[in-house]
C-alpha cells in the first residue's frame, strides 16, 4: 500500500502540487490563528455585530489595500500606517485581521 503511494509521490507533478497545497493550507492556518490573536488583543474576538476599527498596518497602504478596505467596511480615514473603518462585519474583520500586513487591530470610537 505504501509502495503505491511512494511511487505516486515520486512523480514530479504530484509532489509539486502536494507541496503547493500543503504550503497554502499551512499558511492559511497560520494566518487565521495570527488573526484571531490580533482580535483577541483588541477584545474583538467573539464579535457578532459590525465594529468600528483602527487597523495598524506594517506598511503604508496603496490603492491595492484601499480596495480591500472598501470591500470590508466604510473607509473613513488613513493616517500614516493606520486605517480607520466603520461598520466592519465580523467575518470581514476576521479576514482583515488574518492579513499578515496588518500589524494590529484596535477598536475605534468612530469619530
Amino acid at each position, binding site marked *: 500500500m505504501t509502495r503505491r503511494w511512494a511511487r505516486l509521490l515520486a512523480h*514530479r*507533478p504530484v509532489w*509539486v502540487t502536494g507541496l503547493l497545497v500543503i504550503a497554502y493550507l499551512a499558511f492559511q492556518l497560520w494566518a487565521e490563528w495570527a488573526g484571531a490573536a490580533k482580535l483577541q488583543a483588541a477584545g474583538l474576538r467573539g464579535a457578532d455585530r459590525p465594529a468600528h476599527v483602527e487597523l495598524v498596518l506594517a*506598511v503604508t497602504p*496603496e490603492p*491595492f*489595500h484601499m*480596495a480591500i478596505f472598501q470591500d470590508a467596511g466604510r473607509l473613513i480615514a488613513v493616517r500614516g500606517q493606520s486605517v480607520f473603518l466603520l461598520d466592519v462585519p465580523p467575518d470581514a474583520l476576521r479576514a482583515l485581521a488574518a*492579513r499578515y500586513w496588518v500589524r494590529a487591530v484596535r477598536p475605534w470610537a468612530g469619530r
Partner: protein
Amino acid sequence: MIARGLRSPRLLESAGGLALVLALWQLSVPLVGLSEYFYPSPLRVARAFAELIEKGILPVYVADSLARYAGSVAVGTLLGVVLGVAVGLSRLVSRLLAPFINFLYAIVEAAWIPLFVVWWGYGIKVIVVLLVYIVFFPMFYNTMVGVRTVPQVYVDAVRALGARRWQVIADVIVPAALPNIITGVRVGAGFAFRGLIFAEMLAAKTGVGYLIYEGVSTQHTARTIVGMICMGLMWLVIDNAYLKPFERATIERWGVVVTAGEKG
C-alpha cells in the same frame, strides 16, 4: 541525492548565466544613465520585489493568476479531450469539422478579446473564456487526430476479445491517443500562459499581467520588471513540474512521440 542535484552541471550553468546577466545589467545602469523610471537597476528591482511581498500584493497577484490559469486549463483540457474523443470516433464528424476548426485556428487568439469585451465588459469572464478557448482548440484538434489515427488492429483485437464500447474507448483508444493529447496540452498550456498575461494587462485588476502593466502606469517600473520575472518563474515551474514530466512519461511508455499533422 539533493546534494548531487545541487552540484549538477545544469544548475551551475543556470546560476552562472544568471550571475553574468545580473552583473552586466547592474554595470550598465550608470552607463545608460537614465532615471529609475526608464532603467531600474537590479538592486532597485530586488527592493521592489521585497516591497511587493511585504505589502502582501505579490502573493495575491500570483495566486489570482495561477487560479485563473489552472482553472481555465483544466476546463479547456476536459472539454477538448471529451469532445475530441467523441468527434474523433466518428470519421464522418471529424471530416465534417476539421476544415472548420482549421479556419477558427487562423483567428489570432488576442483578436477575440475586443469582441469579448464588447459582450461582457472588462473583467475576469473575458480572461477565463479566452483561456478556455485557447486551451480547447489544440486539445480538441490533437485528441481528435490521435483518436482517428489509432490503428484499427488494436480496436479489432480488443473487440475480438469481447470488450464493450466503453472498454474499447477507455482501455485502447484514449491510451493510444495519449501522445497526441499530451502535445495538445503542451501547446494549449503554452499559448494560454501568454494569453493570460496579455488578457490580464488589458482586462484585469489583479494578477501578474496586471502587475506588469500597473508598474508602468504608477511610475514604478521596477515593479513591472518584478512582474516579468515572476512570469518567467511561474512558467519555469509550470513547464518543468507539469508539462515536461507528462511528455517524458508518454515517451517512456510509447517510445517515440509521433505527432500527426502538426499545425503551425
